[in-house]
Structures are given as C-alpha cells and as structure tokens.
C-alpha cells in the first residue's frame, strides 16, 4: 500500500472510530447534550375554564387555599354552596414556587379542546381544529420521546384525561416524523376504573407464564404472516411487549381493587376531578414517569351554575395539592420533579343568563379579553420560591400558554434538540433559580 493511501485510510478509520459511537439508534449523530433541570415534570391542566378573577384575584375570597396565600373569606352569599375541604397544605403552593398572575392564552378560540391542544403542543390553534383527530403539531410527549436520548419507554410519558370525547386524541399528533411511535400512554380513569369495567374486564382468562409463551409463539407466527397496511388508520400508541404486560398488570390490579377503594381521600364523595387525580397518582406511584400531563374539568359547570363553579375551583385546588403531596412522597420523584399548573383558558367578563340558587349568573367562554387571562404556577426542583410575576415593563402579562411546552422541554433537557420554529413560545427562564 502506498504511504499516501495508508495515511488516508488511517485518518478515515480514526475519524470513524470517534463518530460511530455517537450514532444513536434514533439515527441522530449525537446524544442530547442539554442538561436537565429535573428528571420529572407533571403538568396539570387546571382546566374547565377558570377566570383569574375567581382564582388568583380572589373576587369570592380565597377559593384555592392550598395553592394561594391569603385567608380571605368566601363571599357570604355563595359560602353555603362551597364544600369545606380540609386545608392540607402546610404552606400554600404559591410560596413553594413561582406564580404568574397574568399568564395569557393569547390567540385562538377559547374552546376547551383548543386550549388543551395549545397547552400540549405549544402552538395556538384556530377554528379548523378537528375534534376526532390527533393534533396537527407534535405534542410535548412526542418531543420528549423522540428527542430524549437514549429513547425512552412509552411508560415514561402519560396523558391522564378527565374525559373521553376528543381528549384521548391528545397523546400524539399527526405530524410527519412524530406520531404514535413517540406518543404517550393515555388513560381516562373514570371510564376504565368503574363498575362496568369490573364486569367486562375484571374476570379474565387465567393464563400461566408457560401458556402465555405458547400463545406468544402462535401470535408471533401469525403476525409474521400479516403485513400491517400502511394506509390504514393508526392503531395508536404501542408499548413494547414487556411494557404492555406491565401496563396490563397495573390496569388489572386497579380494577381488582375498585370494590375496596371506598373513599380514598376521606372526604365523602370523590368528584370527577378527584378521581382523575387519584388514578394519576396511582400511575405516578407505579411508573414514576418522567412526563405526565393530567387535567381537571369539573370547573366547566360554570356554564350553568356559578356557585358550583366556585366550589369546583376549591375542589381542584385540593386535588392539585394532593398531587403535589404524592409527588413529594414517591421515591425517585420527590425532590426531582417540577409541577406546572395552568388553566386551558379563562371565562368571559360578562355572564350569561343562567342564574343559580344563590342568585349568581353563570359564565361562558367566548374569546373575550377576560377569557384569555389565566395563571401559571410552577413549583419543584430549581423553581424560584415565593416569586409572583405579573406584567413586564410595557404592562404586558408575563408568560403565555404556548410557553409551557418549551419550558417542559427545557426542564427535560431537550429544547435544543427540537427543530427551530416548531414551538411558538419561549422557555419561562425567569421561574428558575
């Protein structure tokens, strides 16, 4: 071999040996280099449409005593309609983190699904949004799973939805290069954990491990003979066989325990929001996911009953703090989690004509200025404590709905991996110490 050729080959080999170890299974050349602020994020959509007037500005007194500082008493005329849940926070969440009091849902219709989609994709939506389709743009779950290196299990990303309808579609998008392969596991607890599910799922055929292996062998053969059609509709998120088994055991155990659950929080009846958070906590305990989005929607009773709306805000506040308490007791999550709570949108300044038993008028949300005003609360690892942010030097509210996704991406160290221009918002850096 000629000397020149030898040197060239040697140089190529050396370069290759340096580069090859960094070619990842995902096909990217380098591993994610962003450092993480925390290893877990729980994003709670304090949803249903909440006006800042009743939440952070306490127009009816402090309805959120576990979240907000202050002892303002409830307006006497609606006080009989407010359930007195125990104060469980030793200090309000606000003092444990950063509160944005003038956060904004700046663009797009103030619809629940629009608001949810914006919060989960980091992009404002418009009237063209489809209710029976996944979102157009990638969700935070897909960003997280695609750009985290090494690639993470789907059991590390969860969407806990309070309702069926369009909401289950929010666990992945239709965006090219993302989609179900990077989506989150999703459950809608009140539909899967109830009396009906005991009858249809609670008594399965018992299959031993040896029998399961034989069934897997037959199924693998059959699957090998069938080519899944490319053009068929997506069949959704897919877990690895091991993860699917873990998921099934979890679901089966929860169903088996349903008849013994009773009143787990000891406050009488559990509302829909409480049930959603309860099972969200069960997911946290079992899987310790790095990313969970969970919502509450009972507050939407505001369309028909103002006092029940005010009451639901208090219940959601209680459930949110239960979630925070759980996070802080789960090994692996305690001290290494950031909690973010944001309503999907607000409600109108002007009430509608529906009057409740306390003489109060109900509230819709039709994109007026008040329905764009929301709050954002962040607490946990690396978040400044006791900070309250309102407006900037120009009098504009600080922070927007679309900022949550980039902020989560930043916390999990993947924001620099996401292609430029995909997200509309910015990282809420001022919240971090």
């Amino acid at each position: 071999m000629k000397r020149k050729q030898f040197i060239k080959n040697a140089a190529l080999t050396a370069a290759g040996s340096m580069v090859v170890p960094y070619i990842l299974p995902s096909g990217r050349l380098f591993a994610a280099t962003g450092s993480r602020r925390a290893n877990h994020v729980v994003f709670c959509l304090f949803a249903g449409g909440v006006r800042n007037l009743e939440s952070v500005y306490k127009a009816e007194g402090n309805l959120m005593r576990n979240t907000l500082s202050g002892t303002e008493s409830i307006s006497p005329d609606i006080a009989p309609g407010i359930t007195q849940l125990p104060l469980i926070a030793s200090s309000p969440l606000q003092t444990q983190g950063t509160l944005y009091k003038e956060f904004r849902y700046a663009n797009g219709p103030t619809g629940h699904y629009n608001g949810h989609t914006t919060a989960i994709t980091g992009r404002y939506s418009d009237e063209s949004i489809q209710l029976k389709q996944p979102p157009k743009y990638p969700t935070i779950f897909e960003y997280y799973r695609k750009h985290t290196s090494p690639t993470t299990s789907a059991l590390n990303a969860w969407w806990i939805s309070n309702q069926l309808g369009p909401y289950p579609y929010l666990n992945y998008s239709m965006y090219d290069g993302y989609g179900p392969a990077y989506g989150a596991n999703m459950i809608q607890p009140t539909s899967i954990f109830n009396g009906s599910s005991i009858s249809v799922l609670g008594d399965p055929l018992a299959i031993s491990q040896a029998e399961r292996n034989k069934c897997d062998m037959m199924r693998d053969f059959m699957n090998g003979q069938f080519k899944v059609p490319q053009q068929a509709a997506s069949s959704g998120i897919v877990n690895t066989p091991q993860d699917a088994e873990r998921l099934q055991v979890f679901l089966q155990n929860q169903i088996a325990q349903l008849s013994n659950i009773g009143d787990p929080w000891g406050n009488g009846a559990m509302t829909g929001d409480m049930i959603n958070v309860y099972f969200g906590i069960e997911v946290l305990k079992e899987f310790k996911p790095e990313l969970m989005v969970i919502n509450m929607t009972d507050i939407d009773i505001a369309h028909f009953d103002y006092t029940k709306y005010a009451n639901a805000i208090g219940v959601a506040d209680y459930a949110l703090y239960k979630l925070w308490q759980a996070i802080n007791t789960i090994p692996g999550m305690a001290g290494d989690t950031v909690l973010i709570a944001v309503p999907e949108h607000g409600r109108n300044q002007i009430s509608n004509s529906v009057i409740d038993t306390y003489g109060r008028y109900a509230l819709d949300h039709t994109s007026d200025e008040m329905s764009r005003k929301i709050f954002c609360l962040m607490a946990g690892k690396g978040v400044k404590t006791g900070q309250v942010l309102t407006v900037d030097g120009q009098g504009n509210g600080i922070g927007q709905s679309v900022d949550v996704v980039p902020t989560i991406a930043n916390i999990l160290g993947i924001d620099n991996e996401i292609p430029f221009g995909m997200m509309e918002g910015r990282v809420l850096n001022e919240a971090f110490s």
Partner: protein
Amino acid sequence: MKMRYSALILLAFLWLTGCNKEKRYVYEVQPQELYQNAAQKQYLKTTDQFISIAYTHLFNASITNNELNKINVALLAVGDKATIQDMIVKNMIKDVQTISNNDMRADLPAFVDQTYLRFFNRKPNEFEAWKLKDLVEKNADITPKMVYYSMMTSNEYRYY
C-alpha cells in the same frame, strides 16, 4: 349471415374469456364474505367493530347494546389499544365453550381450517395450515382457547 354468425361467436368467446371480477366466496349459513388472503385486509376495525365481531366469533350471537357500550367505553379509555383489546378478549374468551383438547387433536387440519375461517374469515394458506398444526402438535399443552386467544390478539384480527 356468415358474418353475423362469426360476430356472435366472437362475442361469446370474449364473454367467456374476458376479465372476471375477483372471486369472493359467500357461504350460506351466515352470509359472510371470505377473504382470499390476509393482504386484502386494509382497514383498521373501529372499536365497535372489533368488539361486536369478537363477540359474534366467540358466542355466535350478537352482543347487546348495553354490553357493547360498556366494553367500548373501556376500549376508548386506554391509549394502548392492543393491550386493552387483549384484556377484553381474555374476559370474553373465559366463558366460551370450545371443543376439548382431545377433539382438537383428533383432526388438527380441520381444526386449523375452521379456526382460520372463524376468526380470520379466510382459509389458511398451505404454510399457515402446516405451521399452526405443527405448533399445536408439538405443544401438548396448547388448548383450543389458547389458539383462539392468540388469533384474536394478533395484528390480522384488528383489520378487515
């Protein structure tokens, strides 16, 4: 006259040898179109379709609306459809009456044929027939229910 006669013969010839529509057999017991192969299945079953077809395949009866609704809600409530379908099938299959293990093994080729027809709405090809028969023969602990369960939780069963 001769030309008219020739034209008639030509037409008859063309009619007999021209393109035929692909055959899809229809059996009379319960009107059901059979697939000629798995590749003809191009569409994902809806949740309603999956549940009602599974119920009919197992119990040879239609599922009640109430039961369909209960199972449908459970299916919609879990993102991993394969996992929840697996759970649903395991619950349904528990109560199904099957032939005995001995009866299955007494005429395995017939069992394989019938089971493919029952669940996949098609006949197995030669390789499939041989392979499944071979798997069951070599594993004495495989029961009819296990074969049903494997088929109903396979990818092919999710499509039509």
